[in-house]
C-alpha cells in the first residue's frame, strides 16, 4: 500500500490549563479523600467533647497511630509490588519479645531496637526468599509464616512475659514522652514514612517496585531485577514490623506470647483504606499512613464521644466500608467529569 496521506495528528492538543491539571491531580489523589474523612471526624468529635483534642488527647492520637503507621508503611511497599505480608503481626510479636528479653537482661535501649529491627528484617528476608525464589503466591506463603512465626514465638515465650518492671526507665519514658504534643515515637514514624515515601517516588529502584506491581511480565521484559526488588520490599516490611515491635514494647511496656496476633487484618485494612490497591502498582505509603491514622483515630473517637464499646466493632466496620465506598464513588464521579471534559475538548476541535 502506498502511503500518501500526510501525518494526521499534526495539530497538537491544546495544552490543558495548568490550573485545571492541578485540580485533576488533586481530585485524583486518593489520599485526599482519606485525609478529608479524618479531619471531619476529628473536628466533629472535638465539637462534642472538648477534651478530645487537648494536649494529652493529641498526644494519645499520635501515639496510638505510630505503631500501625510503621507497619502499614512496610505493608504498603509490599502491596505495591503486588504481594502481601500477612506475617507482620507475628513478626511484631516476636521482635518485641526479643527486644524485651534483651532489655530484661540489662541491655541498652538502642541495641534492643536494632535487635528488633534486625530480627524483623530476617523474617522479612525469609518471606521474600520464599515468595521471590519460589515465585509462589505471597498470600499463602505469608499465611504460612504467620503461623510458623507465631508458633515459634509461643514456644519460645511460653508463659513468660515482659512487664514494665523489667524495662529500663529511659526506654519506657521514650514510649510516651515527646516534644510538646508530638511524641518521640511519632517523630520516628514520621521520619521513616517520609524516607520510604521519598525513596519510592524518587529512586529508580523505588519506581521499579511500582512497575513490578503493575505488571510483573512487563517488568521482567524491561529488565527490572524482580527478585531483588521483591526481596527489598519484604525485608523493609519485616524490618519495620520489627521496629514497630520495639516501639510496642516501649509504648505498652508489656509483651507476651499473644502480642500482635490478629494485627495483620488491621494493617491490611489500613493499607486498603489508604488507597493502596491489592492488584499492585498504585497507591502510596502516605495513603497507607493516613489509613492507619484514620483507623486508630476511630478507635479513640468512639470511646471519647461516649459510644458504648458494644457498638465499637460495628461502627468500625461500617466506617471502613463508608471510607472505601465514598472514595470509590468520588473516583467514578471524577472519571465521568474528566470524560465529559475530553468530549467537550474533542467536539470543540471538531467544530
Amino acid at each position, binding site marked *: *500500500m*502506498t*502511503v*500518501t*496521506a*500526510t*501525518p*494526521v*495528528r*499534526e495539530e*497538537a*492538543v491544546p495544552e490543558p490549563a495548568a490550573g485545571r491539571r492541578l485540580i485533576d491531580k488533586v481530585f485524583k489523589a486518593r489520599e485526599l479523600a482519606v485525609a478529608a474523612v479524618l479531619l471531619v471526624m476529628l473536628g466533629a468529635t472535638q465539637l462534642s467533647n472538648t477534651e478530645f483534642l487537648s494536649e494529652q488527647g493529641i498526644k494519645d492520637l499520635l501515639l496510638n497511630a505510630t505503631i500501625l503507621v510503621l507497619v502499614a508503611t512496610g505493608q504498603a511497599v509490599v502491596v505495591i509490588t503486588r504481594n502481601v505480608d500477612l506475617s507482620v503481626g507475628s513478626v511484631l510479636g516476636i521482635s518485641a519479645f526479643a527486644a524485651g528479653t534483651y532489655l530484661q537482661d540489662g541491655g541498652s535501649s538502642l541495641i534492643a531496637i536494632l535487635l528488633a529491627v534486625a530480627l524483623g528484617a530476617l523474617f522479612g528476608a525469609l518471606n521474600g526468599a520464599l515468595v521471590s525464589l519460589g515465585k509462589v503466591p505471597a498470600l499463602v506463603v505469608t499465611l504460612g509464616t504467620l503461623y510458623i512465626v507465631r508458633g515459634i514465638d509461643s514456644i519460645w515465650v511460653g508463659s513468660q512475659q515482659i512487664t514494665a518492671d523489667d524495662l529500663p526507665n529511659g526506654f519506657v519514658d521514650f514510649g510516651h514522652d515527646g516534644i510538646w504534643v508530638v511524641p518521640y515515637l511519632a517523630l520516628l514514624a514520621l521520619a521513616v514514612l517520609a524516607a520510604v515515601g521519598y525513596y519510592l*517516588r*524518587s*529512586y*529508580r529502584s523505588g*519506581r*521499579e517496585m*511500582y*512497575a513490578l*506491581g*503493575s*505488571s510483573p*511480565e*512487563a*517488568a*521482567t*521484559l*524491561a*529488565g*527490572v*531485577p524482580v527478585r531483588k526488588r521483591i526481596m527489598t520490599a519484604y525485608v523493609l516490611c519485616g524490618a519495620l514490623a520489627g521496629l514497630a515491635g520495639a516501639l510496642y514494647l516501649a509504648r505498652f511496656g508489656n509483651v507476651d506470647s499473644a502480642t500482635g496476633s490478629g494485627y495483620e487484618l488491621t494493617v491490611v485494612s489500613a493499607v486498603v483504606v489508604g488507597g493502596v*490497591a491489592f492488584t*499492585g*502498582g*498504585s497507591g502510596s505509603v502516605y495513603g497507607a499512613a493516613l489509613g492507619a491514622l484514620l483507623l486508630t483515630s476511630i478507635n479513640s473517637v468512639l470511646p471519647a464521644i461516649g459510644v458504648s464499646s458494644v457498638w465499637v466493632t460495628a461502627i468500625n466496620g461500617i466506617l471502613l466500608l463508608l471510607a472505601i465506598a465514598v472514595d470509590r464513588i468520588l473516583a467514578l464521579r471524577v472519571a465521568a467529569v474528566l*470524560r*465529559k*471534559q*475530553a*468530549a467537550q475538548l*474533542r*467536539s470543540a*476541535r*471538531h467544530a
Partner: protein
Amino acid sequence: MTHPEPETTPVLALEGVSKSFGAVRALRGVSLRLYAGEAHALAGENGAGKSTLIKALAGVHRPDTGTVLLDGEPVEFHGPADARDAGVAVIYQEPTLFPDLSVAENIFMGRQPRRALGRVDHASVRRATADLFARLGVDLDPDQPARGLSIADQQLVEIAKALSFDARVLIMDEPTAALTGSEVARLFGVVRTLREQGAAVLFISHRLEEIFQLCQRVTTLRDGAWIASEPLDGLTEDDLVRRMVGRDLAELYPKQDTRTGEVALSVRRLTREGVFTDVSFDVRRGEIVGLAGLVGAGRSEVARAVFGVDRFDGGEVEVLGTRLKPGAPSLAMAAGLALVPEDRRAQGLVMDMSIERNIGLTGFADTTRAGLMNRKAERSRSVDWAVRLQVKYARLGDVVGTLSGGNQQKVVLAKWLATAPQVLIVDEPTRGIDVGTKAEVHRLLSALAAEGVAVLMISSDLPEILGMADRVLVMHEGRLSAELTRAEATEESVMAAATGRTNQGSAA
C-alpha cells in the same frame, strides 16, 4: 541495486539455534545475521517461530542448542536486561506496559535520567517522552497512565520506548499490526533514519508490502525451520509467500457477490459521552460493511457499545427487529449478535484456559443437557471449529496462551463463528494473521455473508476494507464522517474522510 551479504561481521547473529516447548519444536537449528545499516525482515506463517526467535535474541528464552553472537563473539543473555545492555531494543508482539504508570515512566523505566544523589529527574523524563512522541508524530500526553490506551496507542508507546534506547539493534515483532497507514509511514521514516545512522533492524510483519517497503533482506521460517535468507531485490510477493507456505496462494480478497436482504443490525444515534457521538448506520443481511478510521477514532468503542460490554448514554440498537438492552452482552448474543474483539489477550481469550474451553465459553446453550455440561458435545464443537480455521495446536487441551499470536486470533474467531451468529462484528479480524490464513478468513467472511449473515468489519488495514466491504463507513473523532459505496471507496476518499478533510459523502 542488489544487496549481497556484507563482508563485515554481523552485529547480532544466531547460529543453529533450537528451542522446544515440551513437545513443540518452535525453532530447529535456525541461523540469522543482522548487519549494521540493514533492515532485515523475518517472514513465516503463524506459529512458524518468529516471535520465539526474537525472544531468543532478546534473552527472554535461553536457546536449547546453538549460540547467539554479538559482534561475532558468542554471548549468553541471562535475561532481557543483558540484551538491553548490549544495545538490543525489542518491540514484542504483544505490548507489555505498566498500566498504572504514566506513559513517560513506561518508556524510561529503569533508565530514568538522574539528578544528584541518584534521584530520578521526573521533569526530564517527561521532556524526553514528549520529544519522542513529537518525532513519531503521536499526540499522547506523557503524564497519561497507560491503562485505557487502545492497542494502537500501546503499540506506539512500545515503539517510542524502543527508539529511546538509541540501540544498535532494533527488533520489531509486528509493530504495525494495529496501526493505520499514516502511523506506519511515520514509523518507517524514523526507522529508515536509524538504519542510515548505522542501526541493524529486524522487522516482522504479515503485511508483505511493508516488508518490501522497509527491508533489504529477508529470512523465511517454516514450522520452526530455516528456509532461506536472501535479498529482497528481485523477489516478488508471490515468491515470498511460496517460501513461507510451500505452495501458491489463493486470492487474498475473494469477494463473493451476494444479494443483500433485510436490515439485520440497526444502530440509531448511538452516543457515549466523550467517546463517540450520534452514530447511526444499518447493516443488511448478506452485506459486509467496513468501518474505517484512524486509530482512536472510536470504532472499537462503537462495536463494544453495540454488543453491550460498554454502556451507552443515548440512542438505540436493534438486531433483527429486537431492541437490545444496553449493557447486556448475553441478550445481544441471544438475539444473534457476535463480536470478535480487537484485543485477543485481554478480551478475546481466557489465556490460562485450554483451547477447548475457550471455544466452549460461547456455546453453553448447545453443549448442555438438562443443565449439565455434555463433554462430548463441547469437544466436538471445539474440534470442528479449530480444524475449520486451521488452528495449529498440539492438543485441544493445551493452554491457549502458548499458541502463537496468529493462532490465538484464530481461536477467537472460532469461538464466535461457532455461535452461528446472524450479525457478526469483527474488530481487526486479521490482526497478526499470516497471508495464507488471512485469505482463509476473508473467504470465510465472504461465505458467511453469502449465507445471509450481516457482517460489520472494523479494520485498520485499508486494502482489506477496500477488498472486502460492500459499503464503507468512516469514523473521524467519534463521529461518522462518511458512508461510501464500494465504487466510491478508494484509498484517497477513505483517508480523506478519516482525517476529517472531507465534505463528500454524508454521514448516514
